[in-house]
């Protein structure tokens, strides 16, 4: 019931049911991963994720590489160095073995490229009709350097919001392959492991870096709204500063989508204190996955905790935190 798109309804569901059932301080950190001390000293982070994507193969990736990138990124957003992953496959009976092998190979390649190892796994085959081809669940762990404390509740008025590159690529790539959209340039998913970029960012900005998050489902809009609530602040962003590839913008226009609500799988948002912003941007732009990094706005004090976007002619609007799909609203 509208819980599929990673928006507000999903957030409500999560806090409403699981937070209560599992209640503990690590879960209450409210991030995409949890950091915890290990019995032998030091801190680690852990994350888990489920992947359901249709189609399984899409321009720029497949469910296997996507599962690695998503998990690695969730660990990396805490500033931790991702180490090991698990992979659990739920396969529908009759799923082509050749496809399964292609996906597994892709997953292995992606893990090696990201510098992580898939150390354990599980496979279940379910009856026809009980799964949409293939689902993958992962868990991942990483090692958190001493002294690093990145968290979604740390944004403060005056901080700078940085985006690592163009938005909407993944969602539009998926949609255009699903909908057979013809465009002059093929739109590829941005699916990528961001741990290398994160390492460079942590090194450059040090304690000035407050938090990072990857705007996956629900897009940049959902991520900024989540962070606004978690930190108890508002955001003011500039539409003109947000990179969107022309072909992605064109596809969004045709389909009536707002790129801000479209998913990404290889981008991150960072919040940094003003003193560290220049160094952070320089380090990001020096990395291939942050070449188009841009400061897109600032954190502001706001008791209503809105994400506001300045559009052309000095106008502005609230960036929606949708409960699900984009529904028409103009009466």
């Amino acid at each position: 019931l509208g819980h599929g798109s990673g928006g507000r309804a999903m957030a409500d569901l999560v806090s409403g049911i699981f937070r209560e059932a599992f209640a503990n301080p690590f879960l209450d950190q409210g991030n995409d991963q949890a950091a915890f001390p290990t019995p032998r000293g030091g801190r680690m982070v852990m994350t888990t994720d489920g992947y359901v994507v249709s189609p399984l193969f899409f321009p720029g990736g497949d469910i296997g590489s996507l599962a690695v990138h998503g998990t690695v990124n969730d660990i990396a957003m805490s500033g931790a160095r991702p180490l090991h992953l698990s992979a659990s496959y739920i396969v529908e009976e009759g799923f082509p073995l050749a496809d399964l092998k292609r996906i597994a190979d892709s997953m292995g390649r992606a893990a090696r490229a990201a510098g992580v190892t898939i150390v354990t796994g599980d496979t279940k085959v379910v009856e026809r009709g009980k799964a949409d081809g293939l689902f993958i669940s992962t868990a991942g762990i990483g090692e958190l350097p001493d002294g690093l404390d990145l968290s979604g509740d740390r944004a403060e008025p005056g901080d700078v919001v940085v985006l690592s590159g163009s938005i909407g690529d993944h969602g539009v790539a998926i949609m255009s392959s699903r909908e057979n959209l013809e465009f002059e340039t093929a739109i590829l998913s941005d699916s990528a492991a961001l741990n290398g970029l994160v390492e460079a960012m942590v090194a450059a900005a040090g304690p000035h870096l407050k938090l990072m998050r990857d705007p996956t489902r629900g897009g940049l809009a959902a991520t900024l709204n989540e962070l606004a609530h978690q930190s108890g602040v508002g955001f003011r962003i500039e539409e003109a500063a947000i990179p969107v590839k022309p072909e992605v913008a064109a596809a969004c226009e045709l389909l009536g989508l707002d790129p801000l609500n479209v998913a990404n799988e290889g981008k991150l948002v960072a919040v940094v204190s003003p003193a560290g912003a220049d160094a952070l941007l320089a380090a990001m732009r020096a990395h291939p996955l942050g070449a188009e990094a841009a400061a897109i706005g600032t954190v502001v004090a706001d008791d209503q905790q809105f994400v506001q976007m300045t559009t052309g002619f000095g106008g502005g609007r609230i960036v929606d935190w949708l409960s699900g799909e984009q529904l028409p609203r103009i009466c």
Partner: protein
Amino acid sequence: MAPPPAASAAPAGRVRVRVVGAVQGVGMRPFVHRLAADCGVSGFVLNGADGVTIEAEGGALDGFLARLTAEAPPLARIDGVAVEAIAPTGGRGFAIAESRAGRAATRIVADAATCPACRAELFDPRSRFFGYPFVNCTHCGPRLTITRRLPYDRPQTAMAGFPMCAACAADYGDPANRRFHAEPIACPACGPRLSHPIGEIAAALRAGRIVALKGVGGFHLVADARAEAAVAELRRRKARDAKPFAVMMANSASLAAVAAPTEAEAALARSTAAPIVLMAVRPGVLAPSLSPGLTRVGVMLAYAPVHHLLFAALADASDPDAPNPTVLVATSANPCGEPLVVDDADAARRLGGIADLVVGHDRPIVIRCDDSVVQVVAGAPTYLRRARGFVPDPIPLATDGPDVLAFGAHLKATVTVTRGREAFVSQHVGDLDTAETVRFHRETVDHLLSLLDVAPDRVACDLHPDYRSTALAEAFGRPVVRVQHHAAHVAAVAAEHGVAGPVLGLALDGHGLGDDGTAWGGEAIVVDGARWRRLGGLAPLALPGGDRAAREPWRMGLAALAACGRLDRAPAFFGNVALAAPLARRLAVGAERVSTSSLGRLFDAVAALAGVRAVQDHEGQAAMELEALVRAPRALAGGYDLADGRLSCAPLLRHLADARPDAAETADLFHGTLVAGLAELAVATARATGVERVALGGGCLMNRVLAEGLDAALAARGLSVLHARKLPPNDGGLSFGQAAIARGADITN
């Protein structure tokens, strides 16, 4: 308006009289005082939060009680008078006692235009109020916009910071004076001041400048409406391409030179509410860019002393009632979708880039209130926007029910609070797309609840999960009743007419989320109390691109071609639109899976096919321009199909695609065919349900050709027609409909 109930019960000895209604701030106590002196009655009158209380004995007590309601002051509205006999005290004289606090069962009245007596003083060199831009009396002036809380006494208003001078105090205390207990009384010696001399403002306007002028409910942007350069420059600075501007004129004697109002329209413009009235204008008088593509313009008459002074200065005239050739643009000063600017410091900051001169004053506007907009439809006024001059007049409800707070729609939002058998609908709040408007919505909720002293039992909102009003309702912390958009539209019209039983509604609208998750907007719905049922409506069209289709009528034009099997004609109609070809291909293979039964989108489609416009600059623009082209609506024979409650205009669309009549012909055929089809839909639904009262609700009823066409067609078929008269038919009335339904809803589950 119904005559006030007369006081009954034969008085003997002393009586206690309680008067409830709009009886505070309207000169009720001085009137009672004068009346008591006239009748030789002794006792007292006092304002309490629960109304006006009078104790009276002796003299001509019978006559006193009869004249109390019969001769009440012009702005008073008496809803009830209760008389009880009490023990005589034998006291002498008649006093005005101090106010008492308590639950606020009485109310503030709406702001009223400067009365003739004050206008005369304004231009009388012998008067203390000569040339004073804040003159007012108990029969006119600001009320709601300066009142923080009840009871209505000077310390509770924006006048708290202006101690009266000796002359004003004398008037205020003199029962024979028109300003006896006029709370906003002020004069040049003691009252608020305008930031600039009238002469300087007039000079700026004469030079073609744009002035931000603080008025009653907020700032206006003002410019010479006959100077094309000034109007075009205002458009440029406001970044508003084509949305029509309203104009202000000095008085009703000046109207004829510019406009051709009907008597009903002129009377509305002259009323104490002084709304913007849509009326036909004479060609060639006003600047062409004032209202491109439209034949009617919104006209209001000067309603505040500062307006009268300004008009007099611009025409070098000293008679405020003589014809005055000046026409001024007077548009709400609200930059880019934000609420009306009310604060002086804010004005300097937010309007500095738009206005050449920002004119404020030191009387704060406590409650922001836009100008109301009305038009005459089927012989009576209908609101397009309800605010200054009408709010906070309550709407009586037919039944008792719980106290409800309703949050309204996402666009054109208003707030409704019900208390007992009355509903209080807020002024127009606006589109909840900016943080400032959302804050205004919150303030409006707080202000209404505190003014009415209501703690709602439940809250109501739309079904749409992403209306910001829905989020506000969910966060309020009371049980939430979610009301389907079009059921609320119909319920609003039914409830304002006091209909308690079942009513058949035609909800003719832009968009609302249906309870099946699809997009609705042209529905036949039976509403009966809190229950409702959809019985039919328009056949759906594809909605390519969701809300983008509402901004880009060419998309709906393609959807219409697809619906009538003429997609092959797409290049002929939309060959110059870059995305038309790929979208036509998507439509051809059924890839556009979202559809809508909206009449608003059908209007967009036809406007696009007529070549009226492919992209709109503001909501409803294409439909308004299409309406403006109508000469004589005419139904196309066989232009619609009606089967199983589904009305399809595909035959008409096919005709438009094949024959491609010109825009005016298209407008005539579409309006005529639509009225005929909708009337038949209503008749079929009425026959199926046995309900013969038809309520017309939804934003499309702002189209006068449609509303009057349906009025005539339904009446001709023996159905009784209910129009939205006390609230706008558009989403501005939605909160009231939500409240009406939520009052009867079962929230015990």
